């Protein structure tokens, strides 16, 4: 029997040399222009690990302070800032970005692609994350870090009780980081659906693809409520618009709802990708395909949806009627079922396989033990009477750490040992890795297991000190000792990784004998991933398709030949995986960095009350984004191109379901969720806040609202008219010019209604939220006009033709959405008072 083909020993072909050049990142300052998914993914991973170390050091300070009663090590203000930043750093700057980094790095490799659908969007997301994280981190060193807890409850975080810029830093810094998360969500949904190997139908997709698809969709739907809440709270703090202030018609519980609408799905957003990594590793070490693939996919989708119905279990003590508590209690228990299905599928796979004991398996044992304990205490906390007793105690702290470390950190420690040979080309040290595992495992349980008891005997969370004699002394001391053991374990883990990367022995090709596509690549992979995009016919192609590695290396597949210096990858039908287009990927560009930096000017300007500077930053960022978009697409039509293996395909800018179209659809889903959250806020305040709306605020005059609505609807219609003319090869100029004019007129209509038809927004929450709603619609109508004018310019420059009508269809989607929200908003503002008999 001949030895298996090893791509490391094979010579590079001329086409591979060209691919290496095309996908390379410029050196020096040119690194700021990097867009390659491997480079951006690694940057995300490294940056998130730096934040993990920072968050860990903050935790050590907290544990040192609580080691003994009456400890003078930290004062209350420092303690408040440190625990707030510990939670914020771990959730927003470590966990989510680490997931983003892993997905950005691995998804194209798992799916058999050369890059992501929108490489520059990922680069933009990375810079937003770095700049937002830098704002948050700088505040820590300047002593003005956020200090109201990582969920920033109002009124504690409002201007009255936190008058400094501490809360503003959280609201603006986290929102900046969330721009990155939204970019990630759009990027990954479109990539998983459209950028896969030929033949990789939905049922042949690696499970990690499903997990990331669901996670990215959850981010698309889950983050907008928090972004809205942050914007509203910042407007209250900056301009006095009283969304959360009871005296002027607001309600502080609105913040809690908006925060936890994001906050609980966030737990699953963190857990699911880590569980996806487990689902990829278990079959390799069990040496058999996963059992219950369909059940796992159904369980992941069910977890994703059900997790949005649990948020009120964080608010069980705020005075909600019993029946509502029970609804959320029931839903909270329900979500444990699909989670358990995943565990049973993993256990069944191990049971029916021939498991091998390797280092990652040790960490997977940690997952099974720690996460199951966290899940069980989660079910306890879902029970209302128990929750009332344990609420805001150290029991909750212990529970959340069991869930997050068991469900996120342990799986990713396993994943690090599993995939690092692929990334670095070096083999891990089993012995050091085992020492690190046992120190982490023991240290973690010593820290947090008895912390359940600390909570049950009554110690509240977030207190900077306590008096002796309450029975908390030894419990806290043990936890502190455990935390130091845990830290030593993590230090050893990082040392092991560094030793592996810089001094490890070379790994063999596919050292674990895994079956998924990423292991067909060289270790480390080339910057273009696959020399040829091979068709796949199974979930574990390396097990079921002999000769695949050799085929890839020798260019026996699609797009093996380069042309026109284009960076190409395949686009496929979302369901069947049938190739339907060639996607031309953009090369390195400074524009993502510049756009993110200008957005940073907006956020920093706003933070320091320099609103003209902020306005300049926002405007400049929009111009940079338009400049960025200008060179997308092609200035002339092209015939279908030879994709290899006898297949000819159109270029992506000449097909209907190009990634850009999908990107706009998912972007509108983000936008729509933001809007629905806003409607929820509007209706919530209307229903809950006393004396809402105040007498004399409702004045129904339908003339201008009807005229404005007409402008918006006509704007959408003219965009559709432009599409009809464009695809017929006729000039869309008149239609686009009309859409531009209607957009400007509609904006004027909204501005007039907000400025003339309403009392000042600082006077009452009704005026504030209604003005905000009108502003939202006005901004969308304005952007419809701007986009129409922009596409008009691009049509004149030759970027739009009958075959290349993508941009016309994309702005039409936007215009239709704008018209839709206009009709709903104006109907609500003017129809609801009439319906309730409040109109004067």
């Amino acid at each position, binding site marked *: 029997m001949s030895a298996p083909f090893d791509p490391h020993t094979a010579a590079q072909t001329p086409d591979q040399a060209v691919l290496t050049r095309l996908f390379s990142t410029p050196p020096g300052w040119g690194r700021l222009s990097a867009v390659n998914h491997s480079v951006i993914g690694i940057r995300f991973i490294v940056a998130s690990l730096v934040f993990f170390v920072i968050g860990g050091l903050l935790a050590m300070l907290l544990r040192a302070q609580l080691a003994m009663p009456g400890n003078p090590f930290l004062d209350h203000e420092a303690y408040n800032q440190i625990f707030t930043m510990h939670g914020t750093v771990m959730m927003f700057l470590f966990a989510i970005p680490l997931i983003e980094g892993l997905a950005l790095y691995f998804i194209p490799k798992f799916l058999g692609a050369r890059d992501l659908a929108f490489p520059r969007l990922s680069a933009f997301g990375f810079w937003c994350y770095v700049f937002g994280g830098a704002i948050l981190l700088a505040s820590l060193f300047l002593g003005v870090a956020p200090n109201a807890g990582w969920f920033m409850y109002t009124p504690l975080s409002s201007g009255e009780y936190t008058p400094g810029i501490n809360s503003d830093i959280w609201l603006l810094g986290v929102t900046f980081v969330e721009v990155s998360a939204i970019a990630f969500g759009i990027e990954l949904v479109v990539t998983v659906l459209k950028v896969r190997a030929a033949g990789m139908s939905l049922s042949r997709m690696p499970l990690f693809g499903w997990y990331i698809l669901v996670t990215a969709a959850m981010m698309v739907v889950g983050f907008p409520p928090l972004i809205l809440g942050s914007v509203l709270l910042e407007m209250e703090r900056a301009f006095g618009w009283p969304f959360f202030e009871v005296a002027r018609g607001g309600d502080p519980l609105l913040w809690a709802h908006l925060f936890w609408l994001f906050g609980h799905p966030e737990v699953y957003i963190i857990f699911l990708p880590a569980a996806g990594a487990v689902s990829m590793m278990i079959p390799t070490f069990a040496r058999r395909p996963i059992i219950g693939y369909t059940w796992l996919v159904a369980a992941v989708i*069910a977890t994703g949806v059900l997790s949005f119905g649990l948020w009120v279990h964080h608010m069980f003590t705020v005075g909600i009627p*019993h029946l509502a508590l029970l609804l*959320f209690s*029931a*839903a909270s228990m329900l979500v444990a079922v699909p989670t358990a299905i995943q565990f049973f599928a993993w256990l069944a796979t191990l049971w029916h396989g021939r498991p091998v004991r390797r280092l990652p398996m040790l960490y997977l044992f940690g997952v099974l033990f720690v996460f199951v304990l966290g899940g069980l205490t989660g079910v306890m906390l879902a029970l209302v009477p128990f929750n009332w007793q344990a609420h805001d105690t150290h029991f909750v702290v212990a529970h959340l750490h069991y869930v997050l470390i068991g469900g996120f950190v342990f799986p990713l420690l396993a994943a690090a040992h599993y995939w690092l040979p692929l990334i670095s080309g070096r083999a891990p040290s089993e012995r050091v890795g085992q020492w690190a595992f046992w120190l982490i495992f023991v240290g973690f349980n010593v820290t947090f297991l008895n912390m359940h008891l600390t909570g049950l005997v009554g110690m509240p969370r977030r207190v900077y000190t306590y008096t002796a004699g309450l029975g908390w002394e030894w419990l806290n001391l043990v936890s502190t000792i455990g935390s130091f053991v845990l830290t030593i374990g993590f230090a050893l883990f990082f040392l092991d990784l560094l030793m592996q990367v810089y001094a490890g022995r070379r790994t063999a090709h596919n050292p674990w004998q895994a079956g998924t596509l990423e292991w067909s690549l060289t270790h480390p992979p080339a910057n273009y991933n696959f020399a040829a995009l091979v068709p796949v016919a199974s979930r574990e192609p390396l097990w079921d398709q002999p000769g695949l590695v050799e085929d890839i290396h020798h260019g026996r597949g699609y797009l093996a030949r380069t042309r026109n210096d284009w960076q190409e990858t395949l686009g496929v039908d979302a*369901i069947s995986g049938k190739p339907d287009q060639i996607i031309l990927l953009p090369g390195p560009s400074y524009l993502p960095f510049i756009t993110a930096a200008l957005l940073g000017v907006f956020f920093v300007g706003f933070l320091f009350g320099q609103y003209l500077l902020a306005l300049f930053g926002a405007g400049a960022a929009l111009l940079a984004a338009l400049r960025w978009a200008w060179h997308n697409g092609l200035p002339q039509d092209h015939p279908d191109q030879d994709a290899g293996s006898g297949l000819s395909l159109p270029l992506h800018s000449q097909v209907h379901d190009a990634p850009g179209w999908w990107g706009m659809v998912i972007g509108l889903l983000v936008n729509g969720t933001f809007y629905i959250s806003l409607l929820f806020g509007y209706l919530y305040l209307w229903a809950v806040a006393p004396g809402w709306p105040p007498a004399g605020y409702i004045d129904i005059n339908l003339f201008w609202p009807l005229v404005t609505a007409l402008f918006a609807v006509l704007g959408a219609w003219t965009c559709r008219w432009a599409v009809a003319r464009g695809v017929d090869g006729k000039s869309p100029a008149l239609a686009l010019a009309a859409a531009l004019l209607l957009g400007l007129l509609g904006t004027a209509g909204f501005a007039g209604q907000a400025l003339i038809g309403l009392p000042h927004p600082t006077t009452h929450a009704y005026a504030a939220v209604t003005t905000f709603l009108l502003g939202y619609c006005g901004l969308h109508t304005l952007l419809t006009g701007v986009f129409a004018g922009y596409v008009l310019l691009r049509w004149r420059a030759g970027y739009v033709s009958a075959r290349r009508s993508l941009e016309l269809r994309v702005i039409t989607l936007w215009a239709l959405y704008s018209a839709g929200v206009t009709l709903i908003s104006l109907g609500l503002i003017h129809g609801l008072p009439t319906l309730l008999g409040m109109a004067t």
Partner: protein
Amino acid sequence: MRPALFSILMLLRMGAGLLVWASAFVMLYAGHALACQWLGPLPDVQLLNPVTGVLAALALLHMVALGALGVLWWRYPARAAEDEPPRTHRFRQRTEGLLLVVSVVSLIWLAIPLLVTPPCVA
């Protein structure tokens, strides 16, 4: 039908049961909250009362919708995409069915507290 729209519809159909469940959840929670806000606390109300009746009707309505989806799943399976492997088509059909079962069970589970707890007691 355009391939993109077909794909979106097929993906939505796979998870249609859960979308109905989500609608039920929102309507039951919002309906209950609005009813209690409007009527105020009802400490002495019996299990048979108008609020519970309306909420139970909403739950039943969603159960009927899930039943209709079940009939659709059984009688009119989702169409196969062009060149879709039969195994993928079966996978979509099975996943759709599993998610329908999850949705039905979840809705029944959610409706139990509704039927055994008086509303508007804080």
